[in-house]
């Protein structure tokens, strides 16, 4: 074979092999974590591995719309969630100081099944002994968090902590202001406990409102509001009325959407809870709400947040939820 012919053949083969080989080489050498809407597969891969103390370098890309990334149980990660833009690559470095199984999740309302976009990071290592998980309060109390819990009666006007504070100054309420009491009783139970006082029903509700406010801080309420706005408002609505941007979609998806989950044959689709529903909220104890948030709605559209929020964040969130009912300072 003449040299030019041979050279031409080599060049054509090299171009072909190079065009096939180069992309394959780089794509396999630089693995990306792909984010897609949950309907199309969510995170891929959705299980990641890390070691305590060793930086975990992750490279994300979105295959459809803008997604976000955050890791549960890591306070700062929720606040500093990063965006993952379609077709672009986002670099993230994480270091874990405790072993365990962490949940990472999408922080952008990417679609009606946004909340299903979750994955886990399995962190191994022995930097510190694993801490046993604390049993949630609702479990200790043996609460049936799925049972109806409406308050038998409700105030005619929105209770005010400002008025309640004035009224409470003449009352002996120290037994009700303790954290234990607040967490384990509903506002209605406190209202009932205030029966002996010589107050009108409306005044009693004002005192309830004041006691509820005294169990939180403005910092906790601000934190709760931020968590709510990032994670809850998509379904429950910015104003808590259960009318978030996905509420209609969830309703439209109906039971079929929920029954697609394994073993969920008889579950009813529910529309997002309305936190402005006075009967429902005043009949709910913080412990009960903690249970619902931790565990989720079991087959409804309500996700479990236990693997994502810290205990403190959940109490902050609950304090904020009651602000839809009470007028605080």
């Amino acid at each position: 074979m003449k040299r030019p012919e041979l050279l031409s053949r080599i060049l054509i083969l090299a171009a072909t092999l190079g065009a096939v080989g180069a992309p394959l080489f780089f794509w396999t050498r630089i693995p990306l974590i792909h984010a897609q809407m949950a309907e199309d597969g969510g995170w891929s891969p959705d299980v990641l591995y890390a070691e305590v103390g060793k930086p975990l370098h992750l490279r994300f890309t979105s295959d459809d719309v803008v997604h976000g990334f955050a890791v549960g149980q890591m306070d700062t990660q929720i606040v500093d969630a990063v965006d993952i833009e379609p077709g672009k690559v986002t670099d993230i470095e994480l270091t874990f100081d405790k072993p365990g199984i962490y949940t990472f999740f999408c922080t952008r309302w990417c679609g009606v099944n946004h909340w299903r976009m979750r994955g886990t990071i399995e962190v191994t290592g022995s930097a510190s002994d694993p801490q046993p998980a604390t049993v949630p309060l609702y479990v200790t109390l043996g609460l049936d968090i799925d049972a109806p819990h409406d308050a038998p009666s409700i105030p005619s006007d929105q209770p005010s902590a400002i008025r309640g504070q004035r009224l409470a100054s003449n009352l002996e309420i120290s037994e009700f202001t303790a954290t234990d009491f607040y967490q384990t009783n509903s506002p209605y139970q406190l209202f009932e406990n205030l029966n002996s006082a010589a107050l009108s029903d409306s005044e009693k509700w004002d005192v309830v409102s004041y006691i509820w406010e005294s169990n939180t801080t403005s910092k906790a309420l601000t934190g709760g509001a931020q968590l709510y706005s990032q994670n809850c408002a998509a379904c429950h609505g910015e104003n808590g009325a259960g009318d978030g941007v996905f509420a209609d979609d969830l309703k439209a998806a109906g039971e079929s959407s929920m029954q697609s989950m394994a073993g969920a044959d008889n579950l009813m689709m529910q529309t997002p809870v309305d936190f402005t529903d006075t009967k429902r909220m005043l009949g709910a104890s913080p412990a009960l709400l903690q249970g619902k948030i931790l565990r989720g709605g079991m087959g409804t559209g309500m996700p479990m947040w236990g693997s994502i929020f810290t205990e403190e964040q959940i109490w902050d969130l609950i304090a904020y939820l009651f602000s839809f009912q009470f007028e605080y300072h």
Partner: protein
Amino acid sequence: MLKRIELTRNPFIKSALKNRYPQLAVFIVMLFGYIFAILAGLIGTPVGSHNFSIVFVWIAWWAILILVAVPFFGRGWCAVCPIPLPGEWLQRGAVLNPPDKKPKWLNRRWPRALRNIWLQNISFLLLALFSSVLLTTPNITGIVLAGMLFAAIGLSTVFERRAFCRYLCPVGGFIGLYSQTAPIELRIKNKQVCVTCDGKPCYNGSANGYGCPWDIFPGGLTKNTYCGLCMECIRTCPHDNIAINLRSFSADLAKPSARMDEAFKAFIMLGSAIIYAGVLLGPWGALKDAAYNVGTGAWFIYAAVFLGIIFIIMPSLFALCVSRFENLKAFKRRFATLSSSLIPLGLMFWVAFSLSFVLTNATYILASLSDPLGLGWNLFGTANTTWQPMLTSILAPGQTLALVSGLIWSARTSQKTAREAQVSSIPIIVYCLTTTLVMLWLLL
């Protein structure tokens, strides 16, 4: 009319064309890009606006093809298109060396019944009907590009020459049609030399090169449509009788062909440009959805309307414009001949339509250039170029200018062809004017 200027008189141009290596070098670079685009489409990001295959094929390549290559160089793209390269190597058993005397493969003649561009019309329409998905979905683009490459290879083993390019390529069909308007042509210098030439090496091949891969005898070339500008005849002609000429625009349309396949190609291209402008640039969400959701009832309706406009409405209205019915044969001949008037208009419709999405999406080219594999690279510092429509101020004037010049160009062409066909050109000009107004309304 401009006199022809023979570009191959220039020794530099001549030796650049006669020598195989410059073209081969471009072929190899193009082949790399083509296969790279297939891979990028198949395994790269599914986000079209950031995938090399979508950005470089449907924005960059398309812009060069329709705004520069076709209007100014006719089949200039076919001269460097890498699709036939692997198949020809297989077919000839060589890249540069003369082929064996005994063919390596079946080497059949292309079936006589299919020696027209109907298959190209169909292949273009197949892509056109799926275009909303094809133009935005990288893996579909990858599959189509790969399919074309493998089809070309497969056909090379069964049929002689470049059967895929000549008879099947969905792009080659319309490039051929519009190449008649280009100011470049490959022609013989002296017919008598060809008549007396022994062995016709331009068609049959010789030690200096291959017989015309496009199955053309250059001695009979009168229009650009089927000459792929592969330059083989320049290399094989023992009498130096082949020239590349600079000529006036649309010189081929002075004597238009009367072929129905080419006539319908003109309607397909004109109609598709109008429909695309409506679907891709128009404000109708339901129409976009129907075009995108392939296989749904709405898509079938869209497809039926698409084909109805192209095959029934537009040709029927045009038939009314050229009617003077004596007998079917004469009518068909006149219909086909006069439809060549629509060629400049169709080309300028495509220019106007393409200007819109090319200028709108050109910034994606910069981003994709720096990160062709979507791996977060920034090779040239342009990876984070934010999407921004370019030259927005000249878009509407540019499109209007293209459409108006297309209208004038077609009107002038129709005046000449109508005179020869002994009909009035006024109905044809009204037809062109009406379609131009529709296009203007859709674009602006």
